[in-house]
């Protein structure tokens, strides 16, 4: 037999080839014929991704809300109080400290309140010991402006009202005293005297102590109760950027003899701490999401192993039709990827819906971080690839004769 070119060897042997579009249709054919199983096996991934997207979305929405709150309240607020440590004084600051603080250059606004010994009662017949945790304070007229506060009903004190028996209630105090409006001229009983309620304040997120206080003017406090007007709390606003400078000189300014007995705090830091606490919970839930993703991945791997066993004949047929081992491997890998991406997409949608629902219910703006969406889909792809790898290699290694054996 001649080894030379043959007359009818016109047929060139081209390598087997599977077009990219066919890879997708071949890879999805098994899923299309088993829709229920496809849905159930994608569900694990869906739950995992939804949990992660939801947790990230909700925490991001809540953080955005908190940031908006902090932004609105300002981070340039400082509050000065006597520190209540050992050998702490009588719980007040020197009387002239407000004036001194106001002379610090970058301080824009300053106000103080004086804690009173008197108690506030709803009327003269209730038990005087049941104060409900409320306190009475004599306030600077500048207090509301310094705190960026607002009245929810009525008016804030002015110079006239400050020297007559009128009172403005903090939001919690008003609630506990069952005062909801000021039009009817409700009266409360402070230190044995009747005071007219002229306003109710909106809550102060930066100064929750004031929510539980009844605020009266300093002149009436001095004339009616003969109170000494040493400040209990001084609040001040600095120019943006100068807060650390101001903070460092506040102690010596307020109390030159014992600057250590002055405690200075930045209320916005409290909200930020709250934010940090929430992110600890976020990490916990993210961990739970990761675990369910892992379980979902194992589920997909399991289903794929079963599919390879069930579809031995199909694998054999495809090999007989000219599929290479690589084609078979690609088919099952594609199938596993499609499965996990379906799960991932559904999970992202579900997670976004959960975020939208919860945030809307909380009155927050809805934030679904793009990173959560991208990360969710990327982890779905990675999980699909890992879960499909072993079953796909098993399918590819299956000998055609073995695969074609009748089941």
């Amino acid at each position, binding site marked *: 037999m001649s080894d030379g070119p043959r*007359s009818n060897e016109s047929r060139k042997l*081209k390598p087997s*080839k599977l077009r990219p579009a*066919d890879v997708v249709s071949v890879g999805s054919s098994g899923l299309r014929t088993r829709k229920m199983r496809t849905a159930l096996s994608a569900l694990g991934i869906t739950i995992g991704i939804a949990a992660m997207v939801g947790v990230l979305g909700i925490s991001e929405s809540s953080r955005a809300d908190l940031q908006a709150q902090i932004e609105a309240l300002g981070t340039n607020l400082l509050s000065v109080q006597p520190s209540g440590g050992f050998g702490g004084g009588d719980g007040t600051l020197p009387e002239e400290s407000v004036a001194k603080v106001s002379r610090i250059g970058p301080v824009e606004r300053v106000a103080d309140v004086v804690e009173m010994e008197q108690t506030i009662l709803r009327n003269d017949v209730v038990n005087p010991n049941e104060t409900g945790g409320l306190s009475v304070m004599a306030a600077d007229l500048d207090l509301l402006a310094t705190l960026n506060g607002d009245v929810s009903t009525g008016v804030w004190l002015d110079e006239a009202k400050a020297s007559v028996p009128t009172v403005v209630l903090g939001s919690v105090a008003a609630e506990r005293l069952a005062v909801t409006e000021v039009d009817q001229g409700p009266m409360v009983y402070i230190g044995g005297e009747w005071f007219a309620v002229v306003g109710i304040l909106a809550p102060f997120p930066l100064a929750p102590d004031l929510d539980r206080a009844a605020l009266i003017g300093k002149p009436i406090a001095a004339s009616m109760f003969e109170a000494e007007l040493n400040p209990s709390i001084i609040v001040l606003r600095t120019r943006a950027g100068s807060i650390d400078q101001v903070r460092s000189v506040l102690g010596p300014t307020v109390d030159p003899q014992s600057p250590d007995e002055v405690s200075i705090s930045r209320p916005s830091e409290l909200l930020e701490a709250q934010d940090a606490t929430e992110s600890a919970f976020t990490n916990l839930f993210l961990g739970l999401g990761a675990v369910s993703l892992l379980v979902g991945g194992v589920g997909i791997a399991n289903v794929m192993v079963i599919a390879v066993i069930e579809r031995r004949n199909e694998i054999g047929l*495809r090999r*007989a039709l*000219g599929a290479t081992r690589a084609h078979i491997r690609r088919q099952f890998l594609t199938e596993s990827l499609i499965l996990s991406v379906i799960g991932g997409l559904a999970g992202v949608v579900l997670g976004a819906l959960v975020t939208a629902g919860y945030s809307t219910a909380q009155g927050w703006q809805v934030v679904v971080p793009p990173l959560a969406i991208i990360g969710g889909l990327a982890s779905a792809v990675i999980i699909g690839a890992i879960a499909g790898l072993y079953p796909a290699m098993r399918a590819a290694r299956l000998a055609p004769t073995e695969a074609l054996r009748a089941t």
Partner: protein
Amino acid sequence: MTKASPATIAQLTSTPALELIDIVKEYPGTPPVRALDGVSLRVEDGELAAIVGPSGSGKSTMLHVMGTLDRPTTGQLRIDGRNVSEFGDRRLSAVRSQLIGFVFQQFFLIDGMSALDNVANGLLYAGLPTAKRRVAAAEALIKVGLAHRLGHFPNQLSGGERQRVAIARAIVHDPAIVLADEPTGNLDSAASEAIMELLHGLHQAGSTILVITHDRELASSLPRQISVRDGRIETDTSPSHSNDAGSGWPAGKSAPGHTASSQLLNRANDE
């Protein structure tokens, strides 16, 4: 060479569709099981032949080796003139995708696909675009008499019709040889007869078909029978063995440009 008889020249110069040269297939074990014990066989282009033998005779192993689904332990396998014995997985897959068509006893159709797409799968790994695959598939289905069943799914077809779809899939890429493994094994006698008629018809039109069967009666209806027992060829009614050039030559040989005789002429003219 000039003095040789025409039949001999045909054997020397034409390319057989399939050629096995001293094929041995052993399965590991102690002692090893020798499923094929030195099989040599030549199937010419355009032949219709049966490999017949009882179960355990080695005919299934022979089918697997001829179809490049399994490798021989020793010996040479040539398909359409190519020595494929040394081919790796990728080139063997290419051989299957372009040179061999398989017909199985169990049809092996994919349930979720129409007859048309099942047949088009025969060209899937040739890298043709879907539209071209479907055109060729429709032509093949018309050839096997299923023009009215293109969009039907396997579960809407009778057994005979399913096997027709499988045959269409086996010929859609115009292979050098069609290997049919017990093609009537799952069919009733009427459907079996129709399938054999179809194979004869395809043979008339020029296809090279090898039917593997245990059914001596079915085998005897084909122009050539190769009887296998214990891994060896027992008898072969081939013209190359009987030296009777007339009886075994298939009628399809007369198709122009595609036959051993015309190749012989070309070859003779070249020389």
